[in-house]
Every structure is written in structure tokens, then in C-alpha cells.
């Protein structure tokens, strides 16, 4: 682990210190939303049909049941985008006259316990005149398809189009065109803790404290206050320990609005805990796309132009704050990936259907576009008769900064180097020999590569480019050394498993010479922390970490000023380490706790030259930086059953300066496990009537320990010039690379049968169907 700190001059950054989060979580003292007691419990009555007119809601006698009719003055959720021909569609927090997907909340039942509320909910009768639903995005685009919202004619909620000036010339100059038709099925992020909310009303002040499982407490506060028309200051939002999010918990859910409304109505505490079925059918979905991707290559297999059509099924409503644009627009902006191609044509559409609303899920579109692009690289290799690794070598960008066809600026990275590192690690020639040998015994091995970029830590300009009404980006950190010398950093980010309390403490420790165990990171409470956007998009370590460093540098400067005063030494002779300010080269020192005490209680000594107190603020809004990696999967496909076993998984990755290698590796491992689940197992299946066939964890299958192979990690560190800590984000990379590596490996294993799998997940059924269709191994 010392390799990480070598040469950095840092003592804490780069070390695999144990997490400060762990002791509470390991002893059962974590605090999750559902742990709170409440006077009232809510159960939502949800639509059993995918489309229809809501005629009547019959409530059992004496039951407390709230419907849209009771919510006068509550505004609908109305996400907004000012570009890409976006059609705003409104979502009432409880269905109002129309239902648009199975699972849409129609009524809220309130009772003294969750079980009692569930019993009553079973007795609420909904009369709905069902109408014909449309579930598939291509069907929704066809003429005469049912209209999900009158505001979005033809069910297109947004459309992005781009074509570079030299596209046609490059396209027609190509030696060969290679095409991939890709289908990515619908998936659910499936955090182990489903959604939960608890709202407590304070009679004395009229304030409500909403404790909920969310990735962005500050924005939840803004959004809920808007929808309810209440002063934002009357609402406090707490994100306590949050049991995973992966994007699913960064959108506003209607249910949380209802819970806050009820607590104000009842002037009491009200709680809702989602069950797993609700989470699977009615929280947020992702990844439901059709992608056509074509590449124009010259005779040296150099990519000249890329053409793509993206159809993203966005479900019944638009998600707040990112809107339905989150998937199609991300796909459009980043489809060219890490490859040097200046001519690009893209059409990306978001299409409404009678399905659960789409929102962000780890990687957002990039697992899918990386799969499409990496299939294209492999297919180009086959078309030209060269090794697919060579296709990548000839096309990966290697001059920085590189400006993409979409105007994204790629900072220094190591695309070529990580590819070579991975190729070396897997010993490709040896694998090919073994592959050939075991094929004689009827065993089918395959190897798959994925090289990709992961855009991380981007601030407000990147979000502004999407035309978002709500433009996230920056983060603020307020750092205080209290009069006892204990350090507290209050951060707007809202980590939920990423170990940010530890990594931010490491950054502070190096700057001000106080060990991490004397530093507390406070997050997830709008009363205690400055406004911030939360934790998503591989951003918190870069942006909140950057703001932390900026604040810590200011505190450091002030500590040195005070020490210089006390020790009567020049500021540049003072070093802060081991909890003390020392005069370099002498034995003179003063504890930082004593400096802190001075800063509050002896300010008269500073002759007005030093401001009282020891609190500094840092705000950071960076342009964004690109991590990169090469993933390699080696698989065996059982052609009789279609089962895929991953033998070995190798990663060479580069996320700039690593703050804590243990935590960084953990993020990569976890991301890959989700990517493998996405690639092989996970699928939300709708029937034609819009019913969900995968409403439990036996049917919707996140991977278990059996499916995830040991992962061999190789590292490079290209310090980012676009991030003050030199760190790049890496939370999503594992999930971005794994589907492409695994599915390319499956295709390699099946290459002798002449079948192709361009579908995610590549389930045994799909593999068998492809083999049967070719008359192979039937």
C-alpha cells in the first residue's frame, strides 16, 4: 500500500486506513430510517393496471385514506429541461384520474402500525377503466400507439440530435462499415435497504423533520418544499445511515412528499417503509434501451465516424431532478467513449411508456454504450481479421487534453497503458492456446475486453450543458476546529457506503496535522450541513474532497498564523504534524488544541490581525475529470444449458491519486459485481399488459457470492490536473466496464457457432435461443 503514498509527501492520503464508519455498523448501532418509531404508519395502495381511467376509490368505513382529492394545493412533480425539445409532463403525487403504470401510488392508508395499514389497504377498492397500455419503447413510437401524456405527442419526451460538419464525407470515405444492434433490458438498482421515510412534526415550531433514505438530502428539501408550497426552512431533511443507493435514491419520490404532507396534517410522526415488491415494481428502473451503432473504419481499422440511434424507455413519468434526459442524453454525449473519432452523428430519444419511471442507476447509460462500443470493436476485429485488442490500440486516444466530437475535454489518462497492462496480466497467447485445446473436449472458453472512460467529478458547467432547470455541481464544506482542538467538517455531500467520512478525514489530517480519529465528518442533515448536491455520479471524493482540501488549506493558514504569533517564528518555518505546530529544525512546538483555544479565547492578543474563531469554508465546482480502465473477463459457456461461469476477472484501472486504496478497491469490486449481475442475471420483465413478472428477489436476481469471481486489480495513477486533490472518481467504473467485458467474452466463446449475443442480460435462455436459432447444439 505504500506505493500509493510514495513521493506524494503525504502521511495519511494514500493509506489503507480502516474506515471510521465501521464500528457502529458492525455492532448493530447503525441508524437507518426504518429504525425510528412513529405514531402513524402509511401503506400505499398502488395501481394494479398499467393504464386506465380511475373511476372510484372505495374506502373501508372509518379508515383514514388519502387520495389526490385530499391533496388540494399540493403541486405535481414537474421536472424540467430547457433543451432537446423536452416536453414537461406532470406527475401528481397520488394518481389523479389516470393511472400510467402498475405500482403507481393511488391512495395512502394511515394506521397505527404498518401491519394495520397493510390490512386496511387490502380493503381499499379501486375502480379503474383499463385502457390499452404500451410497454415497449419501439411500440410506443409506432403510429397509433396509446398516448401516455397529451403533452408528449408520439410519446417522445425529448430528442437530442447531433451531426458533425464532416460526418457525411468521413462516412462515405470508409473502407468498411460495422454495425451493432443492441438491446439492453430493464434493470433495478436494488439497494439492500429499500426506500423509507419518517416525518416528525414539531408542534412548538411547526417544523417537520424528514428522515429518509436518500442520496441528496438538500435537494429533497428544496423539492418537497416546492411541491407542498411550504417555506423550505420549515423542513429539515436527514439522511441517516443509508443502505445503498446506486442512483435509485437520488430522485424525488412521490411517497416522501405524501409522508411529509401527512405529518403536517396530523401534526405527528408518520412513517413509511417500502417492501421489496414495491421497490422492484414502483421505485425507479433503468437501462431499458435499444441502441443501433455503426462505425466507419478506414483500411487501417482506424475509426473515421460513428453513427448511432438511441431509444431509451423512460417509463411513465420524468424523474426529478435529472429528468428523463439522464439516460438518452448521457448516451449521446459519451457514446464515442475513449476512442479518437471526430465525426459523429447521433439521434437519442426518450420514450414514454406505461412502465415504472426510469432514473439514474450506477453508470447511467455508460454500461450500455460501453457494451455497444466494445461489441463494435470486437466486430471490427472480426470484419478486418485482426485481433480485437489491436482495434483498440489503433483507436484509443493518447494525446491530452483531447476534445471529443461532443466537446468533452478529456484530461490526461492512461487508456493505452491500462490496456497493455491488462493484456499482459491475462497472458493472451496462453489463453488462446488453452481455448483451442479445450474446445476439442467440447468446452467453450472466451475472453472479452472492455476499455472505457469514466467521466467523474463534474461540476455545474457539465450539468448546465444539458439545460437542466436544476443544475447541480458544486459542493461546500465548512471546517471547524473547536476550542478543544477536535475537528468537525460539515459537508453537503451525502455518502452511503463510500467511506467518505474516512477519506475526507485523511485529506484534512494531512493538511492540518490532526489524526483522522480526531476528525468528524458530518453529513446528511440539512440543519447541520451547508447546501450541497449529495453523492452520485462518482463525484463526492473529487468535489466534496476538493472543497474539503480548500477549507483545510484555509484552516492550515490560520493555524500557522496563530502558531507563528505564539512561537515567535516565521510562518514558513512552521509545520503542522502529529497534532502540533512545530518550528522546523527546533524542539519548539505548541499543540494544535492550544492554538484552537487561542483562536477563541485569546483573540485580544492578535492585535486585530487574526479573525476570531477557527472555521473556514471551501467551495469547489470543477470542470470534471476522466478515470479510465481496461476490464478483461474470461468465461466458460456451457452450451447445453447456456450457463456462463466467469473463470477470471482482471482490471487495470487509473483513477488518479488514490486517497484510500482499500476503499477504492472496494468500490471497483462492488461496481464489477453489479456489472456482472447486469450482464448475466438482472432483468425486470413486463408482460404485454404491463404487469411486472419479476417482483421478488428470486425472480429479479442480483448476483450472490457464487457468481462473482475473484477480481485481480492492477493500478496506475495519473494525477488529475482537473481536481485539486489530483483524485478522479471511480464509483461507477466497475459497473460501466463489466457488462461489455463479460458479454464480449461470451461472444468469443460462441464464435465458432456463428452466433452473436447483443443483449443484456445475456441469460441462459437467450444464449440457448441463439444457439438453437443457428441449429447448433440443439
Amino acid at each position, binding site marked *: 500500500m505504500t506505493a500509493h503514498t510514495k513521493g506524494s509527501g503525504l502521511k495519511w492520503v494514500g493509506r489503507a486506513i*480502516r*474506515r471510521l*464508519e*465501521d*464500528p457502529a*455498523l*458492525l*455492532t*448493530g*448501532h*447503525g*441508524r*437507518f430510517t*426504518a*429504525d425510528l*418509531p412513529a405514531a402513524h404508519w402509511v401503506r400505499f395502495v398502488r395501481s394494479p393496471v398499467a393504464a386506465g381511467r380511475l373511476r372510484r376509490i372505495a374506502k373501508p368505513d372509518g379508515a383514514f385514506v388519502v387520495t389526490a382529492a385530499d391533496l388540494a394545493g399540493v403541486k405535481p412533480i414537474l421536472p424540467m429541461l430547457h433543451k432537446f425539445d423536452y416536453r414537461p409532463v406532470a406527475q401528481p403525487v397520488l394518481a389523479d384520474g389516470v393511472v400510467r403504470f402498475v405500482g403507481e401510488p393511488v391512495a395512502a392508508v394511515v394506521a397505527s402500525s404498518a*401491519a*394495520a395499514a397493510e*390490512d386496511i389497504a387490502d380493503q381499499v377498492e379501486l375502480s379503474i377503466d383499463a385502457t390499452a397500455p404500451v410497454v415497449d419503447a419501439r411500440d410506443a413510437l409506432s403510429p397509433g400507439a396509446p398516448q401516455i401524456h397529451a403533452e408528449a405527442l408520439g410519446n417522445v419526451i425529448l430528442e437530442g440530435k447531433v451531426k458533425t460538419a464532416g460526418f457525411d464525407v468521413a462516412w462515405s470515405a470508409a473502407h468498411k462499415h460495422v454495425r451493432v444492434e443492441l438491446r439492453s433490458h430493464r434493470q433495478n438498482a*436494488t*439497494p*439492500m*435497504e*429499500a426506500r423509507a421515510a419518517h416525518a416528525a412534526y414539531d408542534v412548538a415550531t411547526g417544523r417537520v423533520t424528514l428522515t429518509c433514505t436518500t442520496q441528496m438530502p438538500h435537494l429533497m428539501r428544496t423539492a418537497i418544499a416546492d411541491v407542498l408550497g411550504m417555506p423550505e426552512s420549515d423542513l429539515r431533511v436527514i439522511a441517516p*445511515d*443509508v*443502505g*445503498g443507493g*446506486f442512483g435509485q435514491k437520488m430522485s424525488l419520490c412521490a411517497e416522501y412528499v405524501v409522508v411529509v404532507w401527512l405529518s403536517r396534517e396530523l401534526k405527528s410522526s408518520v412513517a413509511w417503509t417500502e*417492501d*421489496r415488491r414495491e421497490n422492484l415494481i414502483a421505485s425507479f428502473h433503468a437501462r431499458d434501451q435499444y441502441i443501433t451503432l455503426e462505425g466507419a473504419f478506414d483500411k487501417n481499422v482506424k475509426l473515421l465516424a460513428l453513427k448511432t440511434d438511441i431509444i431509451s424507455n423512460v417509463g411513465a413519468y420524468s424523474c426529478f431532478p435529472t429528468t428523463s434526459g439522464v439516460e438518452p442524453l448521457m448516451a449521446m454525449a459519451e457514446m464515442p467513449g475513449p476512442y479518437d473519432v471526430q465525426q459523429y452523428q447521433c439521434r437519442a430519444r426518450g420514450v414514454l411508456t406505461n412502465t415504472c419511471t426510469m432514473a439514474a442507476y450506477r453508470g447511467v447509460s455508460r454500461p450500455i454504450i460501453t457494451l455497444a462500443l466494445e461489441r463494435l470493436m470486437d466486430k471490427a476485429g472480426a470484419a478486418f481479421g485482426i485481433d480485437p485488442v489491436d482495434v483498440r490500440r489503433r483507436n484509443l486516444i493518447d494525446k491530452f487534453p483531447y476534445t471529443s466530437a461532443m466537446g468533452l475535454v478529456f484530461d490526461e489518462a492512461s487508456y493505452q497503458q491500462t490496456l497493455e497492462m491488462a493484456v499482459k496480466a491475462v497472458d493472451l497467447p496462453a489463453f488462446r492456446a488453452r481455448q483451442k485445446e479445450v474446445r476439442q473436449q467440447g468446452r467453450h472458453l472466451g475472453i472479452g475486453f472492455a476499455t472505457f472512460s469514466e467521466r467523474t467529478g463534474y461540476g455545474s458547467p457539465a450539468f448546465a450543458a444539458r439545460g437542466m432547470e436544476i443544475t447541480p455541481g458544486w459542493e461546500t464544506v465548512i471546517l471547524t476546529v473547536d476550542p478543544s482542538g477536535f475537528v468537525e467538517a460539515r459537508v453537503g455531500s451525502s455518502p*452511503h*457506503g*463510500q*467511506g467518505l467520512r474516512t477519506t475526507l478525514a485523511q485529506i484534512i489530517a494531512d493538511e492540518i496535522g490532526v489524526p483522522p480519529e480526531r476528525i468528524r465528518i458530518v453529513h446528511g442533515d440539512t440543519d447541520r450541513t451547508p447546501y450541497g448536491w449529495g453523492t452520485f455520479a462518482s463525484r463526492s471524493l473529487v468535489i466534496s474532497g476538493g472543497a474539503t482540501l480548500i477549507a483545510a488549506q484555509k484552516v492550515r493558514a490560520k493555524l500557522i498564523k496563530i502558531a507563528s504569533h505564539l512561537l515567535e517564528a516565521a510562518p514558513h518555518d512552521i509545520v503542522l504534524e502529529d497534532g502540533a505546530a512545530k518550528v522546523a529544525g527546533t524542539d519548539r512546538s505548541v499543540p494544535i488544541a492550544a492554538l484552537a483555544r487561542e483562536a477563541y479565547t485569546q483573540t485580544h492578543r492578535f492585535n486585530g490581525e487574526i479573525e476570531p474563531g477557527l472555521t473556514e469554508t471551501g467551495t469547489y465546482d470543477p470542470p470534471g475529470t476522466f478515470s479510465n480502465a481496461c476490464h478483461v473477463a474470461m468465461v466458460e459457456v456451457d452450451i447445453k444449458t447456456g450457463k456462463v461461469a466467469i473463470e477470471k476477472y482482471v482490471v487495470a484501472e487509473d483513477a488518479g491519486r488514490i486517497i484510500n486504496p*482499500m*476503499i477504492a*478497491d*472496494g468500490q471497483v*469490486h*462492488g*461496481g*464489477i*459485481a*453489479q456489472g456482472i449481475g447486469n450482464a448475466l442475471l438482472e432483468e425486470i420483465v413486463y408482460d404485454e399488459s404491463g404487469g411486472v413478472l419479476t417482483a*421478488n*428477489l*428470486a425472480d429479479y436476481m*442480483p448476483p*450472490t*457470492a*457464487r*457468481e*462473482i469471481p*475473484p*477480481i485481480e486489480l492492477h493500478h496506475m495513477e495519473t494525477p488529475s490536473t482537473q481536481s485539486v486533490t489530483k483524485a478522479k472518481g471511480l464509483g461507477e467504473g*466497475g459497473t460501466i466496464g463489466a457488462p461489455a467485458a463479460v458479454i464480449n467474452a461470451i461472444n468469443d466463446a460462441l464464435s465458432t457457432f456463428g452466433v452473436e449475443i447483443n443483449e443484456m442480460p445475456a441469460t441462459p435462455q437467450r444464449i440457448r435461443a441463439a444457439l438453437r436459432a443457428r441449429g447448433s447444439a440443439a
Partner: protein
Amino acid sequence: MSEKTNITLTINGSDHAIAVEPRRTLADAIREDCGQSGTHIGCEHGICGACTVIVDGAPVRSCLMFAVQANGKRIRTVEGLANGDTLHPMQQAFMDHHGLQCGFCTPGFLMLAVGVLEREPDISDDDLLDVLSSNLCRCTGYQNIIKAVRAAAKEMRGK
């Protein structure tokens, strides 16, 4: 809804005299009637294992057992693993090997692993992998959980 039954749950050595409906799950009783919220509920249909506790020496999914069935039995939960401020070897190993991220599934994994290793201290690596694949974790990718459990197994065998 229906009449309540008086039962006593013995959790980590302490008796909790409670009255529950027959349909009350052990998970709900532990959390709500006995106030021990360290046991988490992830799916309520026996797949994820977040609610795993040890009942009379065996790991059990507490969402699939009724509280009345646990009447008079010895129940151990995550709150009872550490010895004062000293973490159980399994807890320490999870910390040392980064076997947790969000921590929601962690109590279930700890109780599953401790329960199995107390019964079968010499369980093979492969059988252990089967055991661990009975619970779901969405954050870690499992490799560090496997490492942690193997390290703790060694420690628990006193090697």
C-alpha cells in the same frame, strides 16, 4: 386484527416479555417489540438474508420465522456479538478486510458466518462459499466478505 399471545424472547441473554399477534415475524418482534434495530429487513421473503439471527445455535432468517415459534429459544443478534468494546473476531475481520460498505446487509452476514462457523469450524472454503451465497450484498462484490470470513474462521479456530 387477532388476539395477541404472550411470549418471552431471550435475546443476547436478556428476556423480553412481549405480546404479539401469531402472524408477527421474529424480525418485526426483535426490531419493534424488543427495540433491537441492528437486525435489518431487506426483502421479507427469505432471499436476501439481511435479517439473519442465530436461534438455538443455528442461523435463521428471522423474516421467515414467527415470533411465537421463537418463544423460549435463545436468540443472538448482532448487538450481542462484541464483548464490551472488544469486537468479535468476525466483526474485526470485516473491518480489516473492508467487508462492508453501506452496512445494511452486514448484521445478516455476520450472524450467518458466526452461526455456521460455530457449528462447523473446519468447513471447507467451497462449502463456505455456498453458505455465503445465501445472503445478498449489493455494495462489496463479496470478495472482501469471503476474505473476512476466512480470516475470522482461522481466528475462531484459535490458529
